[in-house]
């Protein structure tokens, strides 16, 4: 199996001089195709920072991240946008749906950016919503959906463009235990049946319990990387 993501000596320093915070201290990590990996660690250990680097949302101070063997260093903003659009799906803790768009429009938005024709777009968006169990709720705006339903829309949005990897940062932090279990089952099922690669930053033991690979971070470094 080839790595989808390769981190080569990635460092990230916020601030300068005495105020400098070393968030990442030389991370070397490969995420393989089909991984269902969790990234855990105490607050401030660098989980979110690492996910941001892998998601091409932020630049490392040192080292480089490669997505499908393509180094991110030196890419222009528009190229990074294209890379995120084509290769990465995001699921955030706060759902982060566009409030003025319906569930279907939120999912379709990424397909619109990919310039997929309207009929195909509609079919794929509805299929993605069906996959996360939201058939019949396509027209609802985020404000008319529960937290769990919003997160399902976010998952559908992350998956609809068939990305190479889905990055999820604390996706269950705002959900009750019942909804968490449903979502974890859903993500696991998508990984198993569709082969979607997941890298999930989380503290949640219920999520960690499902993972096939668990990475533990402490003080900006990888403390352990185990496969079950």
């Amino acid at each position, binding site marked *: 199996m080839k790595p989808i993501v390769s981190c080569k000596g990635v460092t990230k320093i916020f601030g300068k001089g005495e105020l400098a915070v070393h968030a990442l201290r030389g991370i070397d990590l490969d995420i393989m195709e089909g991984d269902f990996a969790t990234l855990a660690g105490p607050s401030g250990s660098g989980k979110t920072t690492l996910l*941001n680097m892998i*998601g091409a*949302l*932020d630049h490392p101070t040192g080292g480089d991240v490669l997505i499908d063997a393509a180094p991110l260093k030196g890419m222009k*903003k*528009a190229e990074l*946008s*294209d890379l*995120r*659009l*084509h290769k990465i799906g*995001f699921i*955030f803790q*706060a759902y*982060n749906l*566009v*409030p*003025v*768009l319906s569930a279907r429009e939120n999912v379709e*938005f*990424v397909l*619109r*950016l990919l*310039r997929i024709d309207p009929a195909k777009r509609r079919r794929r968006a509805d299929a993605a919503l069906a996959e996360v169990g939201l058939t019949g709720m396509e027209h609802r705006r985020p404000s008319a959906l529960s937290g769990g339903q919003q997160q399902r829309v976010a998952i559908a*949005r992350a998956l609809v463009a068939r990305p190479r990897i889905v990055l999820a940062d604390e996706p269950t932090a705002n959900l009750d235990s019942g909804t968490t279990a449903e979502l974890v089952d859903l993500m696991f099922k998508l990984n198993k049946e569709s082969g979607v690669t997941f890298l999930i930053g989380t503290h949640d033991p219920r999520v960690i319990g499902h993972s096939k690979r668990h990475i533990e971070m402490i003080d900006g470094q990888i403390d352990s990387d185990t496969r079950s």
Partner: protein
Amino acid sequence: MDSLKLLAPLAWRNLWRNPRRTLITLIVVTIGLWSILVLSSFMTGWMQSSRDASLRLLIAQGQIHAEGYLDDPNIDNLMPMPDATLKAALDSPAISNWVARLELPAVAQSEYKTLPVTLLGVDPDAERRISSVPEKVVEGRYLNDADDDSAIIGLNLAKRLKTALGRRIILMVTDADGALAERSFDVVGLFDADVGFEDTYVFTGRNALQAMTKLESKIAQIAFEIPEEQDLAPTLASLRAAAPGLDVREWRKLSLLLGALDASMAVTVYIWLAVMMVMVSIGIINTQLMAVFERIHEFGLLRALGLKPGHVLALITLESMLLIGLGVLIGMLAAVLTILGLQGGIDLSAFAKALEAFQSGDTIYMQFLPMDYVIFPLAVWGIGVVVALWPAWRAQKISPVEAMRQAT
């Protein structure tokens, strides 16, 4: 085009996320454009009324003089009555009316006072068609014919001379021999115009004045009226061709004050446009900055999803274009309705005394100027969108992770 299809519905819906703020911006843009359009219509109406009143009084749309007369209006710079060629040009369809006048500097004397005046020998029949002076006679009568050797004077001049209707005044002018000619005239009519005009002009029959000054067939000016302003330039050209030795001028060159007022009206409207644009721009920048900073997290999200920085700039600019465009449409509609509602004219009779100086009459008729509805809306819309580019530029510049971190 694809980007527009993607962003336009999003931009439109974003406008209504904060209806109060959107309405405030709409009101600012609407009032701004409405005031510019209505002011322009009012100023044009006022200027036109003022100009028409002034031109109808004496100047008309243009005049012909002997070369040098306007610089030195004395008896040596007079001209003969129009010859056949000039008469044919003056009788052309482009000219609705024309008159020949003898105008001489004179001195008016009553039992109590002596004052300098301008004495005008006129043909009353022709004057009735071209000048408003005959209608302004408020006491007594106007002149009967060109041989009428009575005098018509202004109300204020009568007051200053301490004379009255039915009394006599003595008028002194230089005659053809360079000698002083004087005669007493019956005051048969008093006219009411602005004070300056009343003090300056005394009217009598042209033939009577020519006989008194031994200036038979000599005149000082031909004033002509053109019904359509756009015909002025070609008419001036044809008159110049018909009278090569004479000085043919349009009204702007005859009354510099009127010409300057005409030009300054446009300047006034543009100054108001600038003032309004500053106010509208401040409102738009304020609104758009608030709208952008409230949604900075969302822009971060959109960038994370794959929206390019240029798309963020386009989205916010599109929102400004829609918002200002809507305000512009409402402002135009409000201005049209206002002008239609005031079609009967604005009664300013309460300010009649103050308006006398402008000779604008008591009622101002708003003018509908189609080009205003192209130029000013485009200016407001264009400038509004340009000033909104700054908040948009700031939003697209911020990195996605920075944007998402700021709001969480």
